[in-house]
């Protein structure tokens, strides 16, 4: 028994070590590339420890118009997407909470929208957005709406869980107290959903902030951050790509590590 226990413990340690290494090495490489001159990044054999440190990439990222524009655009798109997804998610969750038929319809729609392959939506969507003048706009409004649609299922399910925790009697009580349906939603439900609303907002925001495919297809010139990182990464600008990646990752990491527990306890996404 004790020997087997030891073996298990060794396995546990090894696994932990493996997880740590696979997590730390990429982050280290990213930081290294962001702060070393590009010749270091192109060297062969690869330099694990940079020879020349520089702030040039970070400076470039934060000072060039294009990069700053993307940063701001990404933030705007993510904010609009998160607000829309949270608002619509709240509405949907509210409608689904007490009504079985609404719940069935809602779940079916959320499931269907989760099943759609990005490419099958994005290509025709580009055509549609061109027609309505929302394709590749500087504000990225079209993309923000699409991101909202993608984030909606997660937000709605999360809020649905939160709604379900509020006892039905509270609504009945408020109704008997003379509150209208809208008052019930605004003054009884919403104040109790603060945490879930915050979680839905943060998750929607991050999902938009991280989203790549639709951004690539719908904002070919007025880019958001992920496609811009893609262009710099695949098009050879190692330093700028890494610096940009750091800039875009840092806030995400801070938020997510802080919200680790919400994440781990996040309600599961809708099934089919």
């Amino acid at each position, binding site marked *: 028994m004790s020997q087997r226990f030891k073996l298990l413990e060794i396995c546990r340690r090894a696994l932990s070590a493996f997880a740590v290494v696979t997590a730390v090495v990429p982050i280290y490489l990213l930081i290294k590339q962001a702060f070393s001159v590009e010749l270091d990044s192109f060297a062969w054999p690869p330099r694990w420890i940079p020879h020349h440190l520089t702030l040039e990439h970070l400076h470039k990222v934060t000072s060039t118009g294009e990069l700053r524009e993307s940063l701001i655009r990404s933030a705007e798109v993510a904010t609009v997407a998160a607000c829309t997804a949270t608002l619509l998610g709240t509405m949907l969750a509210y409608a689904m909470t007490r009504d079985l038929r609404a719940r069935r319809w809602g779940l079916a729609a959320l499931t269907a929208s989760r099943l759609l392959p990005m490419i099958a939506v994005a290509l025709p969507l580009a055509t549609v957005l061109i027609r309505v003048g929302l394709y590749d706009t500087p504000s990225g409004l079209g993309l923000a709406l699409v991101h909202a649609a993608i984030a909606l299922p997660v937000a709605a399910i999360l809020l649905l869980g939160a709604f379900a925790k509020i006892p039905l009697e509270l609504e009945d009580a408020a109704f008997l107290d003379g509150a209208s349906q809208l008052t019930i939603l605004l003054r009884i439900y919403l104040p109790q959903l603060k945490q879930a609303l915050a979680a839905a907002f943060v998750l929607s925001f991050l999902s938009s902030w991280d989203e790549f495919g639709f951004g690539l297809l719908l904002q070919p010139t007025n880019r958001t951050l992920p496609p811009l990182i893609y262009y710099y990464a695949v098009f050879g600008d190692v330093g700028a790509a890494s610096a940009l990646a750091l800039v875009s*990752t840092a806030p995400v990491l801070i938020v997510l590590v802080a919200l680790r527990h919400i994440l781990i306890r996040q309600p599961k996404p809708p099934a089919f």
Partner: protein
Amino acid sequence: MRRAGRFLRLSCLGLPLGFLAITLILPLLSGVILSFQADGFSLENYRFVLGDSLFRRSVYNTLILAAASLVVEFVWGLIFALLLSSRRRASFVTEVSVLMPLLIPEIVFLSVARYILLPRGYLNGALAAVGLPAVGWLDPRSALCLLSVALVDAWRVTPMVTLLLLDGLQGIPAELYEAALLDGAGSFAQSRYVTLPLLKPALYGALVLRGVDALRIFSTVLVLAGPEGAPVMSTYAYQLWGDAMEEHRAMAASVLLATMIGTLGAVVIAFRARTRASGGGALEGLSG
């Protein structure tokens, strides 16, 4: 009864669903229509796509990639979930490390993976440092390239699987293990007769979710291998649209992908309905 509230509820249901319809379903339908257009209404685009050897290779690659990625991420996901849920709590560092790939934006993760796997990347550098020859991890059309893509994809989503399974594991009451222990079950027997059967719903749900995602694989291929290196259905459509400017054929290809995934979804829903009817309740927990 409460007629006054009905309007609010109906609009609360209708508005978001309408929004989903306009942003997702409507474009999809217009894509379907476009895919049938080629000098008038015809099946020409489908004929082209289905007759294209590159498309056939894309279908093959999509299926292989999905299968490989799923196997890897579920094995790892289960191992990590057990690691995180074991009675001796994992340290903060381990916890964050296991989740790390999920915390980093997808594109950042993929570009770092690319820097690692390039012919003169860090992995080959590490191999050279110990005197091993370089390996063509991303050589176009090679089986190794497919494997690399599958591994990176699995590496990125394993935390997601871990979380889904962790949720399932944490739902298993500790008393059951104690009871099994008292009944004389060893750790293998415990996992065989307690963990696995009770984890089944979570496992099944995660498998469905990830299966759909695996078939949709796009970014990983685009960043690591390029649309020619390991063509999959989504990059095939993207390439027809962006590079070849064959809009209608691109739509046909993406409609085929959507159909494939939709069929899978329908099968799963039907299967789920059956297991639920027979008291299996496989995905019950997942419907929120």
